[in-house]
């Protein structure tokens, strides 16, 4: 009997580890193995000897698109993310008011959460193509005589705008749910207290809501930045290689040129950038997260 209970409690003691082990082993293998293999691919030649030829190719070869890709990935992030945060803040404040059809509006605003980047790109292609909605609309209204061209190598700045529109349209929903969740966690008491002291709408925003939203906005910023370095489908659909991005170049080197070492190097660079950003995130929020868990 006592032997039995001891056995039972022993199982209970190790049970959580037994339950977690399969998932964790799977993740560690499917991330650890490719990363190790990636380092090998990136820094060895066909004979298995150490080489920096892939690094030289990536950095200096005229056929490598690394620097333009890095530049355009950063430029896209720098334009898209601030617009998304502003828009998401606006949506969140709008939906913190009470009005008829509020739930409906919330559902509509989160629809893009489930739409893929490829589909988002195609949807905006239907809006901006030379036979697309906007061109036909503006031509019918007589605002323009010729369709405005968005696509093709000679219209690269317009392609950039098309990608920005598609990404703002599709991925703002993610920023929105993070900020909206943060807004709902702000206690009504703070706002009521401010109202008692005669604070107007702007004062409430400036001195209570914005400061208390800071953690949510930071989270949203970091997660969006992480995703920005993985941007791929929408760019491929709308601009192909006209606007090079890091993931797109990795794909191109791997599947078109069969430069497996160079492609692996791109993969490692994207992983390294993300790990640095993720590390900052964990450092910044670990304390806060642990407080929440212990509550």
């Amino acid at each position: 009997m006592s032997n039995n209970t001891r056995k039972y409690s022993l199982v209970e003691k190790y049970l959580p580890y037994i339950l977690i082990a399969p998932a964790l082993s799977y993740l560690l293998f499917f991330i650890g193995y490719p990363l190790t293999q990636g380092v090998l691919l990136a820094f060895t030649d066909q004979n298995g000897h150490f080489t920096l030829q892939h690094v030289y190719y990536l950095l200096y070869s005229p056929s490598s698109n690394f620097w333009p890709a890095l530049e355009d990935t950063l430029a896209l992030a720098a334009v898209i993310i601030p617009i998304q945060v502003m828009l998401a803040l606006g949506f969140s404040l709008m939906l913190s008011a009470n009005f008829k059809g509020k739930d409906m509006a919330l559902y509509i605003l989160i629809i893009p959460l489930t739409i893929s980047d490829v589909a988002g790109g195609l949807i905006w292609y239907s809006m901006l193509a030379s036979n697309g909605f906007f061109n036909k609309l503006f031509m019918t209204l007589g605002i323009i005589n010729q369709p405005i061209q968005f696509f093709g190598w000679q219209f690269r700045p317009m392609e950039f705008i098309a990608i920005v529109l598609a990404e703002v349209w599709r991925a703002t929903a993610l920023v929105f749910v993070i900020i909206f969740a943060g807004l709902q966690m702000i206690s009504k008491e703070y706002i009521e207290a401010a109202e008692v002291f005669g604070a107007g709408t702007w004062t409430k925003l400036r001195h209570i809501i914005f400061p208390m939203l800071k953690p949510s906005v930071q989270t949203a910023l970091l997660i969006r930045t992480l995703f920005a370095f993985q941007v791929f489908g929408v760019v491929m659909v709308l601009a192909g290689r006209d606007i090079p991005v890091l993931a797109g170049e990795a794909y191109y080197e791997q599947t078109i040129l069969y430069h497996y070492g160079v492609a692996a190097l791109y993969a490692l660079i994207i992983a390294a950038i993300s790990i640095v950003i993720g590390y900052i995130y964990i450092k910044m929020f670990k304390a806060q997260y642990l407080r929440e868990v212990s509550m």
Partner: protein
Amino acid sequence: MPGPGESAPIRYYLFKIVFAGIVILSCTWILLPIIISILYAFSTPQDFYNPKEVIPLHFTLSNIQKLLALGAARATMNSIIVAIMTVIFSFILGLPAGYAFARFAFKGKDSLKLLIIGLRMFPMLVIAIPLVTLYIRLGLNDTLLGVALAHTTMALPFVILITSSIFVSVPVELEEAGYVFGLDRKQTFFRITLPLSLPGLTAAAIFTFIMSWNEVFMAAVLTLTNRTLPAFILTSAMAAPDIIKFAASFIMILPALIFVFIARKYLVSMWGITVK
């Protein structure tokens, strides 16, 4: 929002009108592109290429049929198979871990959970490139199983975190009642915890399905002939005429739209949890 101020009713109504305008504008911004792309997907070529027909008036199924004949039918089937395998693998592996995080106190729990959160943010697409060499050796290259295994890596941290939060929301008192009536942990889980978690778990499963359905980079790198739908669109459908592309985007967003409708209640909380 300001209450109906008796001193300034005009200002109040003006505010209401402007506010309603902003709400309608925001919803139009999201809905209009979806509606237009769906209308164009079913538009006749005559209507689409007629610059005067802003909104097509004649509809046909031939765009979808042509797209399916081009190979999208098989790609769609492949996508469904990969997504179902991904859901099964990631739930078999992730559900026990989620339960452990929800119901046990153990040494290293916080660090392990942080590790999972960290892995959730890892850019999983990068594993696809080195995986090719392993897959060639194992005979998994260009197979649906290979893609599903990679997608499982992407979905697993999400499944662990979401199932954990679903189990946490089941009242412990109900489980304790089970123990009082002589059920052991396993029986309690299958007779009390699991049935109560089923709606949330279903939503999570559909969400995992969509995650795999939408993924393009790994699928495009790991397959050559057995393309999933997004990989097929990227490599083949982009050369097709425009209305065929719109048909492709319609098939891509269809499950997503159905899902938003079914699981809208869970959508905000699910993202709120996984991105924390």
